[in-house]
Structure formats: C-alpha cells, structure tokens
C-alpha cells in the first residue's frame, strides 16, 4: 500500500499562532495589572554634627569650606528586565558616596542632584521576552563636597583641667 506524503506545515503555523496568542495575552494581562509608575529610593546619611557624614539636596546655612564638585555615575545592563547585576539604582550610587566624600577630606555633599534611568513595570515585563536585548541603565549623582566648620567650643565642652580656677577657692 503506497503511503501518501503529508506536510506538517499547517500544524506548525497553528502552533506558532497559539504561542503568539498566549504571549500576547500574557503581555496584555501584565500591562493591565501592573502600574505605570516605577519607584526607586535610598536612605541618605543625615548627621548634623560636623565630622559626621551628611548628604543633602539643599544648601548649607552654616559656614563651610568647599572641597570641590563630585559626580558619581554607575551604568550597566539590566538582564531579563529585572536583574540589575552591577547595581545601577539609587542605593548603589549612594553607597559609593561615603568613601568618595572621605577621600576628599570632606564631611558633606550638598546641593545633590540625581538622574536615573527608569523603566515602567510593563517595559520590564516586555524585556523578559526580549531577553537577548538587555536594558541599558544608569544612575548619576552630582553635588558639592564641603567640610563644615567645627562649632565654637561651649563652656561645657572645655575640659575641667583647662577651666580657670576661681580666685581664693578651696
């Protein structure tokens, strides 16, 4: 009995269509359920005593000595939409600040400005499917390095040994 040659072309097309529909449905569902806002935050050192580290976006009202300007940039790829392998978020950049401030003999970074690449959750989910194209990401912090002047010593700060003794005291 002679066999009839058959082609599996229609079934492959149908399977590809089904896969495309499922992926499209997943993307649509992800788009509907995820918000369009991406949030990134970091805690900053807020010491108010000269000598301790201070990072602020405002200007100082107290006397200071300028130690220069500083820019820290971290950049790298985000893999699969979420894997930030080198750390290009605010927290990673802020972590770099301490050693840089200390290395310039400063104790504060003032008038800080931040720029960061942000991707919406939807864009990140799309990147999971486009895993072969990593998302470029970058965070930049700029500011002025200053050294705050130490406050004038108060009476209570003077060591007892250096305090003048009252005349005729016992």
């Amino acid at each position: 009995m002679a066999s009839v040659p058959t082609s599996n072309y229609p079934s492959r097309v149908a399977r590809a269509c089904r896969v495309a529909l499922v992926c499209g449905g997943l993307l649509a569902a992800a788009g509907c359920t995820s918000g369009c806002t991406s949030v990134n935050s970091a805690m900053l050192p807020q010491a108010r005593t000269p000598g301790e580290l201070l990072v602020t976006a405002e200007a100082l009202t107290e006397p200071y000595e300028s130690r220069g300007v500083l820019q820290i940039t971290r950049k790298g790829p985000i893999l699969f939409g979420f894997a930030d392998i080198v750390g290009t978020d605010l927290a990673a950049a802020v972590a770099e600040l301490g050693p840089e401030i200390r290395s310039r003999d400063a104790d504060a970074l003032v008038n800080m400005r931040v720029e960061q690449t942000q991707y919406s959750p939807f864009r990140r989910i799309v990147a999971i499917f486009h895993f072969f194209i990593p998302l470029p990401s970058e965070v930049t912090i700029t500011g002025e390095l200053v050294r705050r002047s130490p406050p004038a010593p108060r009476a209570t700060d003077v060591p007892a040994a250096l305090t003048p003794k009252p005349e005729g005291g016992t």
Partner: protein
Amino acid sequence: MRPLHLLALGALGVASLGCNAVVSGGALSNSPPQGRALYLSTGGSPKKYRTIGFVQVRGYGVQLAGVADVGYANLDATIKGALAEEAVKLGGHGVINIEFLDENPSTDAERAEAAMRTVNNFVNGKAKIEQKDRYVTVTGEVIEFKE
C-alpha cells in the same frame, strides 16, 4: 599573542572592573566668602544680590584610547574656566545655583575596552585610535552683590 587571545584577555579584564565612573573638580568658594574673588557656589548667595542673567556652558572634548582626555570636557575647565569668564564679562560678582553634568563619563571597564581595542587595531596593522566624544554641561545664575 594572537588577536583573538588579546581580545579574550581584554574581555576578562573588562569583566573584572567596576561599572562606576567618578568625575570630580576643584573647590568652589567657601561660605562666608573671603576676599573679592568671583563667588562660585552650587547653592545660594551668602549676601543680598541682584540677578544679572543665566549662563549655560557645554564643554566638548575627545577621549583617546580610553586614557587621554583632550579638550574642555571636564568640570574645572567649564565651571572655573568658561562659566566664570562669561560671568565676569556680564559684570557679575558671582555665579550661584551652579548645576553640572558630565553627560557621558567612561567607567573603568569602558576605558579598558577602548584601550584594548586600540591595541588590537595596531596589532592588526590598523593605525586607528579609539575615540569617544565627551560633553560636560554647566549652568548657573550670574549675580551682582548689593552690599
């Protein structure tokens, strides 16, 4: 050493380096200001003032082979150079609220990659040095002290 080995070695070196770039410039003015030098600050003015105008400077430069920077794409040349000169031309006593941005600083990995590419070019008989355009933008408010 074959070029392929050189590239592989370079890639290994690049992978082991960090992805951060640190750019810094010299000191600006102290607060309170001393002397009659042009007052430069990323913050506000320590005295009463009148605004004369605003200045934006974009310094352009080229980085060669990841190691040599040529031109004016650095913070000192733009803030203490072009920006200060322009403020003096306008008759200002200072520039406040200075904002600066090195638009495309190179990380250690990028510098190493450019150097390796340049070496690889020469090994392959091509006299080509890797170049990268560099830009630094600085803006500021030019002021005149009232006192």
